[in-house]
């Protein structure tokens, strides 16, 4: 399902990306040596400890930070990319507006972009259906559990039909069981929505379970250690976590992070 023709232009191309923050005359290296490609429709996990620059990298991809060095190209000849409307974001906190009903929260990016109201609402309802929140559209955020709020946040990231979804530890604040469930759900959403997703996490097992590819970043100094593809078939179920190949992949990531 993922086109990896060697000659084809990848959807995202990063080469030697470096980011240096300067404050009070001192320099702080947040990201370095980041080189990897993402094909359209991939779900790439970026894994690493705190301080490895994964959030910074995500913000560079979102167009929120200007990187210091290297090449960041998003979009290809086959797929145009408009940085002002083709990014959807999900954070660790659902960040739903307390005073808006769930459907109106989902509609926020569409409203800001000035998309047609009726179509947007229909799309929001379809998305709520997709993330399993039918019947909750008129509830307020406080009436939903943490996992449900995060699903609404995912629907919100999809409402303007962006080509790239960036997720920053989206399930990091959830309890372990809900997190497993959300992982499965994310895979099913990814397959239905057919989006390119970049998923930042510090959970190695989560990264391997979700990703078509895993990018490993290390801290102190921040740099990219390696990337490797996860050749486990989709759709994936929790059973694959007991397979030898899964164990090999996670071991490889642990090794790269110096935790063997």
């Amino acid at each position, binding site marked *: 399902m993922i086109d990896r023709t060697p000659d084809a232009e990848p959807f995202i191309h990063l080469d030697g990306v470096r980011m240096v923050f300067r404050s009070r005359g001192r320099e702080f290296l947040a990201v370095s040596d980041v080189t990897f490609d993402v094909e359209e429709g991939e779900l790439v996990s970026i894994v690493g400890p705190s301080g490895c620059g994964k959030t910074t990298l995500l*913000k560079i991809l*979102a*167009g*929120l930070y200007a990187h210091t060095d290297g090449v960041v190209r998003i979009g290809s000849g086959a797929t145009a990319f408009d940085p*002002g*409307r083709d*990014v*959807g*974001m999900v*954070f660790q*906190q659902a*960040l739903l*507006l*307390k*005073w808006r009903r769930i459907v109106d929260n989902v509609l*926020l*990016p569409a*409203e*800001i*972009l000035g998309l047609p109201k009726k179509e947007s609402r229909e799309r929001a309802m379809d998305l709520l259906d997709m993330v*399993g929140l039918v019947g*909750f559209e008129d*509830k*307020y*955020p*406080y*009436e*939903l*559990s*943490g*996992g*449900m709020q995060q699903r609404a946040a995912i629907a919100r990231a999809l409402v*303007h039909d962006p080509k790239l979804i960036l997720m*920053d530890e989206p399930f990091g604040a959830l309890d372990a069981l809900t997190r*497993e*469930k*959300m992982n*499965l*759900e994310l895979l*099913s959403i990814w397959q239905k929505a057919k989006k390119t997703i970049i998923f930042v996490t510090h959970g190695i097992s989560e990264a391997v379970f979700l990703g078509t590819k895993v990018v490993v970043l290390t801290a102190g100094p921040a740099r990219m250690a390696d990337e490797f593809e996860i050749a486990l078939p989709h759709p994936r179920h*929790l059973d694959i976590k007991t397979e030898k190949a899964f164990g090999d992949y996670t071991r490889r990531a642990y090794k790269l992070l110096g935790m063997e």
Partner: protein
Amino acid sequence: MAVVDPNRTPAGGAREPGRGKVNETVGHWILVVSIHVAVVILWYLFVAWGDVPSYVMPTPLATIESLGKNYNWLHNTIVTAGEIFGGYLLAMVVGVGLALVFSWFRLLEVTFMPLLVSLNMIPKVALGPLFIVWFSYGVGPNIVIAFAICFLPILLTTARGLSEVDPDLIDLVRTVRASRWQVFTKIQLPGSLPYIFSGMKVAVVLAVAGAIVGEFIASEEGLGYLMLQVQVTLDTAAMFMAVLLITLVGVVLYWIVLLLERITVVRDARLD
């Protein structure tokens, strides 16, 4: 094997409005009324059994009967209420307005906020005599005193509310190129409402105090003025009645604020 079905999640985690809610509300109000009635009864018993002279403390009944005396109750109450509401409204407009200006022009906030915080430390009541010198006496100056004493809490809480926006949320809307105006109308302003209301609630009590202090210092009408008049004749019952009416005006204002909060702020977002 239907052990994990990610598409069907029961509403287990969600809170649903309980059925006992109505009973709870009724119970709550019975309690509210009872405790007030109990205080009035205790008041009566204290005066009746303690042989307290009526010029020290009147009975509840004598207090109400004082309404029959020709003290121009209605007019004085309207004057005081006008001062309180006037000062309060002015404080809301100026307080919220200044906070908005501060949130738009950061430099102004950085420059003037420390000054305002210092000014807030001045006991505004102590400025009363000065206001009389500056503005003469009457309803107008009393409105100014009520305003001066209650606008800073509104300004400070509103400014705080406007600045309390999650940076991630700003990033999220920046990815879809939200304008400053959109961030303001869709996120900042509605998000600051609970803060504005918490300041407004504090300000009610202050506005009442401000107006009465103004009337104490120099005035020819109003409930505070009336209290000083009847104090001379030791008509304690009328003084009690004046205090009750002042309280009532404050309570009415407070209820209006609560009602507005109910209408505009979602339950979960309210600060109490």
